């Protein structure tokens, strides 16, 4: 029989949701319009701390088309207990409840929701809601908050305390080379292109369909069920398309709560969409301060690391990140310690943004490493190789795999690193100084318990499904490829479904565990289908496959084929017909298994990367251009080199933003972010991005996760800004220790 080239794991299959996305057919949360839907427009509070003393909404209610104005004074009741408002990912503390009472916790806090027949009426009326406040003294100055840094008594679930080894203070006192630097990272906002939005469809039978911009349909479902005291069976959350997340959709944001509040109050369908300005009133990457002290022998061998950091959080929740552990894990050094704490301000709670903790802590640490390389008069790449650790140096455990050495070698080769001049300010092109820098990236290779379903129809079409999300990561495509690989069906015959809380259980999409976890579950579900098919094939007259077991056959082009005798085969359709089956269904859960749990304890599992950056700096004007990036990644098995490369490109671009552009500036007097729009908060535009070369180094790792996949969503950003900062030093001779490196800092 004819066999076509197998498009499975490892093929650069184009996105299976591509046509829907290029034709405008993919529908996002705000693009559903149920009958009699009301438009909700959020009124944002004007002060950072205090209380509401009165709301005059008479003028607003007079606007034609306005139906209701929801405030803390007239809202319907929700769950009483604080813990009923917790979501799966909420950090310790007391979750913010929108329109709960008169207290103001942060500037921009929603204080009212206007409901109207048209968007324009709601928007206009929102400007007429008059809110009176009694302000209290606030602090939104991070430097002041740091003075009162503290370690929360209750830690966030995924927090890892830094482990001390040796005696770093003593080693520092004796070290012939010492570098001590303090770094700073500005607050950043995720700014996905789609603004947070919810459309609630109020059904006649009292059930509710929620189209939400979230990275986890089941997290939103559980949260709404708990907070509103409505059975989860009555709430279906859909998010088949998400216009970018980057972490901003991990926790349910206040728009979904407001929409639900209004829908239950009015018993009507409601849509609430944040404005771009309001996108700056919730989750953000925390501001960070990091002090790195390094000691080394004259030959550059590290003898001491002291890594201390503080990140910002709100007054009502303790958001914690793993900031200081990365440097301790990555470098061989006998004496090392870390210290981490949070600093509370009168803002919304900070939260996870692409590679939380690592994008901050590894990047800033890599800038300190560069300074020590300079002090030791070593090439920064040679310095990193000299202090290379084969094992996880903090935990003393081996890695399941660590091909960072190969990443350095292949990245350096592609970049042409050998041509680098050792001293700064030695390379020039016209009026521009040229600089080359390098940094290391590191992230966790995570796996999360996930279920998937598979259904094979009599006509040979297969559907695979899971409640997870594709936030642009390519999960639909990866699921299709794994199903193709396992059952030998062409991708056109396969439909992948995601983004529906009714589908098999899945965690939120985040932490780069999606491909490894959903992929493993899909593979198991398809393997289960394969076993059932083989059993059905036994019913075919004459038993063409004899007594072949699952290891004796292959699944090719809709047929079960004997490995030893390719002439012996049974089509899926014949097998199902013989067994009298209209369809075959399976649902499986990937857990990593007991061996996975044991391995989890004994071995560290991480992705690594080597980033090389070239910058050109206008000597007179201080304008920096990143002209070239080579990012060499060691991330285990690559399921789809095309979408995988895009993940890294995206991380690198956000890293360039972190290095040069992205900064949410606080007006500490008003307690409010000032540049709350896309003109003043600059995310990289096309002209900011030049050549980016992505390399995946060979890193077979059957142990890390069932498919050998490590995940790619975050690793691209980690360290990138460090490589750019180090290149800027190489170009200019100037160490700027505060990101982003804007022109003013270079002109000082």
């Amino acid at each position, binding site marked *: 029989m004819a066999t076509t080239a197998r498009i499975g794991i490892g093929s650069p299959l*184009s996105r299976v949701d*591509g046509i829907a996305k*290029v034709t405008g057919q993919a529908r996002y949360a705000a693009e559903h319009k149920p009958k009699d839907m009301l438009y909700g427009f959020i009124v944002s509070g004007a002060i950072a701390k205090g209380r509401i003393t009165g709301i005059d909404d008479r003028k607003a209610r007079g606007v034609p088309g306005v139906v209701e104005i929801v405030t803390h004074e007239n809202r319907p009741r929700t769950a009483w207990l604080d813990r009923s408002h917790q979501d799966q990912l909420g950090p310790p503390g007391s979750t913010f409840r929108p329109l709960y009472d008169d207290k103001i916790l942060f500037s921009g806090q929603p204080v009212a929701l206007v409901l109207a027949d048209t*968007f324009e009426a709601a928007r206009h009326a929102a400007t007429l809601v008059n809110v009176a406040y009694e302000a209290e003294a606030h602090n939104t100055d991070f430097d002041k908050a740091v003075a009162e840094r503290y370690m929360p008594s209750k830690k966030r679930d995924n927090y890892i305390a830094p482990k001390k080894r040796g005696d770093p203070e003593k080693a520092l006192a004796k070290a012939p080379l010492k570098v001590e630097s303090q770094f700073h990272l500005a607050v950043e906002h995720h700014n996905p292109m789609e603004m947070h939005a919810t459309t609630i469809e109020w059904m006649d039978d009292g059930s509710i369909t929620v189209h939400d911009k979230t990275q986890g349909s089941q997290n939103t479902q559980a949260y709404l069920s708990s907070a509103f005291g409505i059975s989860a069976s009555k709430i279906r959350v859909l998010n088949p398309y998400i216009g970018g997340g980057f972490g901003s959709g991990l926790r349910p944001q206040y728009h979904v709560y407001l929409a639900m509040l209004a829908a239950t109050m009015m018993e009507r369908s409601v849509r609430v969409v944040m404005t771009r300005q309001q996108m700056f009133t919730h989750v953000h990457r925390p501001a960070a301060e990091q002090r790195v002290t390094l000691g080394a022998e004259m030959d550059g061998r590290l003898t001491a690391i002291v890594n201390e950091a503080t990140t910002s959080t709100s007054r009502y929740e303790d958001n914690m990140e793993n900031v200081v552990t990365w440097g301790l894990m990555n470098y061989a050094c006998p004496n090392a310690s870390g210290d981490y704490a949070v600093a509370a301000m009168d803002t919304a709670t900070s939260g996870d943004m692409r590679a939380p903790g690592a994008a901050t802590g590894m990047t800033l640490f890599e800038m300190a490493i560069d300074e020590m390389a300079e002090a030791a008069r070593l090439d920064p790449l040679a310095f990193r190789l000299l202090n290379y650790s084969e094992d996880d140096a903090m935990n003393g455990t081996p890695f399941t795999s660590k091909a960072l050495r190969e990443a350095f070698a292949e990245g350096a080769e592609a970049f042409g690193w050998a041509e680098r001049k050792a001293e700064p300010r030695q390379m020039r092109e016209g009026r521009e100084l040229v600089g080359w820098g390098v940094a290391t990236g590191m992230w966790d290779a995570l796996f999360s318990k996930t279920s998937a379903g598979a259904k094979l129809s009599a006509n040979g079409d297969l559907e695979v499904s899971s409640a997870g999300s594709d936030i642009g990561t390519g999960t639909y495509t990866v699921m299709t490829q794994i199903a193709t690989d396992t059952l030998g069906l062409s991708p056109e015959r396969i439909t992948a479904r995601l983004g529906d809380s009714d589908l098999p259980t899945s965690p939120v999409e985040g932490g780069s565990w999606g491909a490894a976890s959903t992929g493993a579950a899909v593979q198991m579900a398809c393997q289960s289908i394969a076993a059932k098919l083989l059993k059905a094939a036994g019913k075919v007259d004459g038993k063409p496959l004899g007594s072949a077991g699952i290891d004796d056959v292959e699944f090719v082009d809709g047929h079960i084929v004997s490995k030893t005798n390719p002439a012996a085969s049974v089509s899926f359709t014949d097998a199902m017909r013989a067994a009298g089956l209209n369809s075959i269904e399976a649902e499986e859960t990937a857990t990593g298994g007991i061996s996975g749990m044991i391995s989890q304890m004994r071995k560290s599992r991480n992705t690594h990367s080597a980033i090389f950056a070239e910058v050109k700096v206008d000597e007179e004007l201080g304008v920096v251009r990143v002209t070239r990036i080579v990012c060499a990644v060691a991330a285990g098995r690559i399921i789809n080199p095309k*979408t995988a490369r895009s993940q890294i490109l995206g991380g690198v671009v956000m890293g360039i933003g972190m290095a040069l552009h992205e900064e949410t500036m606080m007006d500490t007097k008003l307690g409010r972010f000032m540049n709350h729009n896309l003109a003043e908060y600059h995310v*990289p535009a*096309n002209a900011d991005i030049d050549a980016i070369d992505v390399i995946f180094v060979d890193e077979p790792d059957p142990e890390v996760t069932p498919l050998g996949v490590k995940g790619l969503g975050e690793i691209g950003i980690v360290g990138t800004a460090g490589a750019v900062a180090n290149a800027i030093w190489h170009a200019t001779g100037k160490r700027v220790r505060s990101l982003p490196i804007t022109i003013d800092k270079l002109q000082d």
Partner: protein
Amino acid sequence: MDTATLDTPADTYAITIGLTINGQQRRLPVEPWTTLLDLLREQEGLTGTKKGCDHGQCGACTVLIDGKRVNSCLTLAVSRDGADVRTVEGLAEGDRLHPLQQAFIDHDAFQCGYCTPGQLCSAVGLLAEGKAKSRDEVREMMSGNICRCGAYTNITDAVLEVLGEGSVK
């Protein structure tokens, strides 16, 4: 199509305008404060055109008005009476994708897909302008369309392929 009657019911402040949207002639009552973007998305159900900022800062709402790329969020619908509007839904001919749409898929020039309709319309406008010849010019002239997923290098590759100058540096 009968253009003498209104396609959606009028209300108090509405002014009737005529628009050709993706080749279809429409007579539409619009309130003077309604943007072309909201008209397309809310009144016409053409949600392919995206709202990313509502302030002309991100380009997600880019459509083609009389062949030129325009931010539809900064365009009051009443001011475009008689215009020819083309949105992402009108780029393909039946099942045959526009070459840019195909190039975007081939080059993986998007991830979440939310900026994609604006990028595509902007690229169609760019090609029609005939100014961009080099890679750097495409980068510069496509900079009104933000892609937070960071697909820029792939977007540029896709545009260059259709521009027929894929080898230009």
